[in-house]
């Protein structure tokens, strides 16, 4: 027969067990400084101008597990003048990298859409590299109600 004491001990064990994942150190989230570092690794010291890149995110995402993102770069996408890549960075995810897209004149239009995960309210940055070597960036900020990466803990 189980006594109240056994029951309490059992409850404590279960609670402790289920709380365990929360107490384990989570990977530190990326910071704006990590994004700067990731950008330096990707682009060296090349200057990045602001403009030509339109990054669209909803202002508010109820669920950070799937957030629609679209990025459009102002470019004629011809053989002579086109976007070579677009790289996306998150300032408050566990890792700064989101994706890198490679484009060329076959694309015709530099407009990409995808769905991403966001761990917290943050800014997302897109950097586009043109075939003339210039780099351009645009960003968008978003409020996330339910963060991605945490559902395993609940």
């Amino acid at each position, binding site marked *: 027969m189980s006594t109240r004491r056994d029951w309490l001990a059992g409850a404590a064990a279960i609670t402790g*067990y*289920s709380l*365990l*994942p929360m107490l*384990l150190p*989570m*990977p530190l989230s990326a910071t704006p400084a990590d994004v700067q570092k990731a950008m330096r690794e990707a682009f060296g010291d090349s200057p990045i101008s602001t403009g030509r890149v339109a990054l669209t995110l909803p202002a508010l995402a109820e669920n950070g*597990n*799937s*957030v629609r993102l679209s990025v459009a770069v102002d470019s004629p*996408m011809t053989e002579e003048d086109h976007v070579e890549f677009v790289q*996306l960075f*998150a300032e408050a*995810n*566990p*890792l700064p*990298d*989101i*994706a*890198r*897209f*490679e*484009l*060329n*004149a*076959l*694309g*015709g*239009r*530099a*407009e*990409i*859409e*995808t*769905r*991403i*995960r*966001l761990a917290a309210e943050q800014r997302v940055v897109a950097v586009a590299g043109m075939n003339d070597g210039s780099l351009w960036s645009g960003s968008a900020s978003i409020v996330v109600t339910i963060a*991605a*990466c945490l*559902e*395993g*803990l609940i």
Partner: protein
Amino acid sequence: MPKARISAPPTAKPGEIISIRTLISHPMESGFRRDSSGAQIPRNILTEFVCLYNGRQAFRAELHPAIAANPFLAFHLRADVSGTLEFRWTDQRGEVTTETRDLVVEP
């Protein structure tokens, strides 16, 4: 084998810019989640997507764990000649899923 869905027009006019939308079933397990016993769930993600237009690379994406489960990618192509669109997803172990679509280009 992950199941892929592709939306691409079967025909286009020369020079027309067509919109391609792709979706593939895949958990994109980030490697940051833990199961109920606290053990880390290992990372299992697709790392690359490529679209080839008659063998020429038209679009490529490098994917990280921040891409949502069942990766969705939409992009564009300028139709110039009839041929085959090949879509190829590669996971972190190098396993490849391929889909093809025919594109007829006529005025």
